[in-house]
């Protein structure tokens, strides 16, 4: 029986049952009709209401079950079972609602599952993009540092190239000078050997000179002694002439006292006095000459002593020169060997410097390319970093959306 039939029956019963009950009561009683009628109406109303209540209760019981189920669905509770089992429209509605809830549960379950997975994926994506962004920032910073480093490296390589160029020129010049120095060292060695031989000869000559000077000084000393002896003799002659002079004076006095008898003696005394005076004059001349000779001898002796000292100093100096030349010979020999080694090493160094210069030129090209590439990489990395930032922003936004979606979906209980 469908819903329409049930309502018709309920209406009929609600209207006609009181009427029937009134008619029955009216026919049974005729007293006090008014009060009876009122009682009858009242009773009829009560009965009708009771029936109506019973019928409506029967009719709305299933609808309440459906309404509760719909309310639960509306609240997101898909776990509520619909306990309506009838063959009427309500039953069909209940069946349809069961099917709908079952389908919704299945869909919501899948949506919840997908949402959860998507949220996790988006969260992971967000974390990953954050990490990638951080890494990209670090990479960008590193790449920028690398680019700056590459630029500095290129500049330094350029400076190094200039230095290498200068070094190469210098080493070439050193190599050339070393070659010249080697020849100069050989010349210096030859000159030093020649100087050493000359110094040896000079030393020998100085020895001879010193020997001659010593001999001359000895002769001068002897001469000085002889001169002093001459002076002594001259002093003796002077004294004798003086005494003779006095004697002649006295003889002249005696002759004068003798008068005419002493005339001849006076002449002799006069001659003796003159001889004495001549002797004295000659002695004085000899004395002066001897004094001059003595003085000169003294001077010569002094000069000879100075000459001897100078000769000894000269010999010492020549010995020092000989020693110095020996050292110079040893030094020049060592210098020649060292210069030879330096010359060879300088040549190798010049060759190495040329290779180094070439390598530095290649390095400069590579460094320049590296600097340009680093600049490009830096720019690309900055772009990547910007893109990753955008992606990260989108991922965060997506994560928020997924979170809201998950919140919405989680409102369903299945």
């Amino acid at each position, binding site marked *: 029986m469908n819903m329409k039939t049930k309502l018709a029956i309920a209406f009929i019963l609600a209207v006609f049952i009181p009427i029937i009950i009134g008619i029955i009561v009216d026919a049974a009683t005729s007293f006090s009709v008014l009060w009876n009628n009122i009682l009858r109406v009242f009773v009829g109303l009560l009965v009708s209401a009771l029936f109506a209540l019973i019928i409506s209760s029967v009719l709305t019981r299933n609808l309440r079950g459906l309404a509760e189920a719909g309310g639960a669905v509306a609240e997101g509770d898909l776990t509520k079972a619909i306990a309506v089992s009838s063959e009427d429209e309500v039953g069909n509605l209940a069946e349809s609602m069961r099917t709908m809830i079952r389908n919704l549960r299945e869909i919501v379950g899948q949506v919840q599952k997908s949402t959860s997975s998507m949220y996790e994926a988006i969260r992971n994506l967000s974390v990953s993009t954050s990490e990638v962004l951080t890494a990209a920032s670090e990479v960008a910073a590193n790449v920028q540092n690398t680019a700056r480093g590459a630029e500095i490296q290129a500049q330094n390589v350029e400076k190094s190239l200039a230095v290498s160029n200068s070094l190469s020129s210098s080493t070439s010049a050193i190599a050339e000078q070393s070659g010249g120095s080697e020849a100069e060292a050989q010349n210096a060695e030859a000159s030093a050997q020649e100087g050493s031989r000359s110094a040896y000869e000079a030393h020998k000559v100085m020895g001879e000179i010193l020997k001659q000077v010593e001999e001359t000084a000895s002769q001068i000393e002897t001469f000085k002694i002889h001169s002093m002896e001459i002076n002594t003799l001259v002093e003796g002659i002077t004294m004798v002439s003086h005494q003779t002079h006095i004697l002649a004076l006295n003889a002249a006095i005696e002759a*004068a006292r003798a008068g005419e008898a002493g005339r001849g003696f006076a002449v002799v005394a006069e001659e003796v*006095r003159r001889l004495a005076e001549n002797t004295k004059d000659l002695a004085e001349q000899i004395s002066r000459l001897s004094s001059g000779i003595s003085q000169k001898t003294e001077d010569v002796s002094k000069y000879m002593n100075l000459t001897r000292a100078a000769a000894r100093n000269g010999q010492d100096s020549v010995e020092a020169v000989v020693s110095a030349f020996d050292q110079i010979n040893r030094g020049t020999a060592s210098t020649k060997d060292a210069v030879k080694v330096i010359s060879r090493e300088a040549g190798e160094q010049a060759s190495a410097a040329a290779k180094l210069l070439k390598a530095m030129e290649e390095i400069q090209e590579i460094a320049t390319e590296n600097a340009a590439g680093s600049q490009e990489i830096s720019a690309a990395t900055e772009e990547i970093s910007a893109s990753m930032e955008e992606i990260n922003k989108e991922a965060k936004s997506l994560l928020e959306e997924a979170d809201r979606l998950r919140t919405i979906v989680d409102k369903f209980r299945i």
Partner: protein
Amino acid sequence: MSKLIIGNIGGEFIGIASKDVLEVVELPRSFPVPFSLSHLRGVAFWRGALLTVVSLYGLVSPKASESKPSIFVRSLKPRDNILVGLDKIEDVTPFNDLSMREEGAGSVWKGIYPWNDAWVTVLNFERLISLLEEEVINTLRLGNSGR
């Protein structure tokens, strides 16, 4: 024949007649006499005789007082015990009294005598010796002879 002994005292030429001279001697070792006159240089022993050594520097040349005589003329008259010092004997030349100029009378200076291109002051040696002897005696009398 008389001779004139020409000596030099402090650059001054002094002439002494040889007849007044006993001998010419070199300076013997002399001994100074304390508290005596300045021109009495001392006494000396010479050939067994004690002689008085006299310097004439103060008499003929004040500037010659710093010099030391190297030769001495021994007097003959009136006493032969006085030695008169000279720096040097320049010459012994013949002496003619007629050539004397400005002859003094009773003085120690007899006059000047030409010698070479110069003039020689000739001493009255005998008179000088007499005066010196008196002076020496007076000195001895005063008790300052340093005996």
